[in-house]
């Protein structure tokens, strides 16, 4: 029985879990069911990491502290 992986919350946790998944899959020791689950989990992690990278790849946004504070106070979110 495979153990339930902890839900990764940060980019570094996600990448660490992805590396573990790839190592397991490459070992060829995972059964069919486990492989399917690992692939599913891996795809979710890839999406998470891609979203994180996407967030810092859209183009540099420069704000002054006052602008950020004003935006937050206006309730527009960050």
């Amino acid at each position: 029985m495979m153990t339930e992986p902890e839900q990764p919350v940060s980019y570094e946790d996600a990448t660490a879990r992805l590396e573990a998944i790839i190592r397991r899959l490459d070992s060829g020791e995972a059964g069919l069911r486990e492989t399917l689950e690992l692939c599913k989990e891996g795809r979710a992690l890839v999406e998470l990491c891609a979203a994180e990278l996407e967030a810092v790849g859209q183009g540099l946004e420069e704000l002054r502290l006052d602008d950020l504070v004003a935006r937050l106070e206006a309730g527009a979110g960050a």
Partner: protein
Amino acid sequence: MRETAGMADRAALPAGIHGSRLPGPFGVGMYAAKLRAYLRERSRVQLFGEVWNLRVGRVKVYFELRDADGALPCSMWRTDFDALRLGTGALADGLQVVVGGGLDYYAGSRTSSPAFSFAVSGLRVAGEGDLLAQLDRLRKALDAEGLLVPQKRLERRALPRTIGVITGEGGKARHDVLAGLARRGWAGRIVWAFAPVQDRHAAPRITAALQDLAATGHVDVIIVARGGGSLADLFCFCDETLCRTVALLGVPVIASVGHHTDRTLIDDVAALSCSTPTHAAESAVPVHCTQARAELAQVTRRLRVHGQRMPLARPGLVATARRLSVHSRRALLQRAQTLSRLSRAPGEHVARERARLHQSLREMRASGRRRAGDERARSARRALVLDRKAQAVALDAHRASGLQALALALAAHDPDRTLERGYALVTDSSGEPVTTAGAARDAHAVRLRFADAAVDATICGDDDRA
């Protein structure tokens, strides 16, 4: 003074300020010269204070003498400074010194700036200054309270989305931070909190900026950057309130105040201390984003391969297929290597043989030259020996023929040869030859020696004179 100014250029002399009762206007150079003379007449004294902003130039040494109540710019001729023989590093920012000298003023000119200073002619290092001692005490106090640790325990995101940066608005550090982030391929959100990074206004403004950035709740990491300077310039980063704020902040702070030799207190309390703003930016984003995107694409491909393969085949078959694939790749690679080696073999063989033949030819030539030389030397030696032998033989022959002639001549004179012809040799009792009749009479008894034997004879009777 008025007359001199007038003489200088009366036509160019401007009119004074309308309504002013002050004397003048005077030429500024003349006034500066008078001021210099006035200052130089003041009493020469000894002062004590702390050295700050020390700069050792080729001609002069400059520093500021400071204490809690004020400061004075000082200058000292480099020759006088070197004559003190203080040694490298013996005079440094923060040290307490006693200086002797007097006021001076460099009047400047149309192309150079004026400068006021206390001209130091003598100096004594009196020990560590109060400011450095105070700094040391504060560092120990913060350490004792455990405030050097909390920032280092904070988790720093590998891929922050928002980075807060506190720096001077017009400083070079701003560009360095941007360059460092660009190098990481990071293009998220930067929140600039500009603040003075020098003088007494700096510490409170930086403290406020830190608190405001953290309070937004949207900043993942904060960089405090400055482009460097002397410890005196960076003293605001040793402010106690600022350092306590950093230590207790919930957001990681990366300090980069650009000083290599002396650490400021913010370096100690921050999560990380970097030597340059560029380095600080790179440390704020440990992940190289461009590289990470490429790696992620690769992971996606591998997952796809695994996902597509598995539903169609049993695990054992997949492993077997993978092994087969690996084996076939390996076999193919080995074949390719063998073929490549074989294709190279004839050429390599010819090249090896050619090299070997060339080598043999070189060795043979060298050997031939060496042998011919040896033979020549040997022949020469033999010729010399033969020549000497021939000379010796000729000499021997010459000597032999001479000896033979002598032997023949000697034999010709041998009395035995005469005796063989029938003559006899007469000798007296002592063996001396008796060659006359008188001698024979006198001898009376003689011996007659013939070729075969000798007989004794007695002389008697008269002479038979011829």
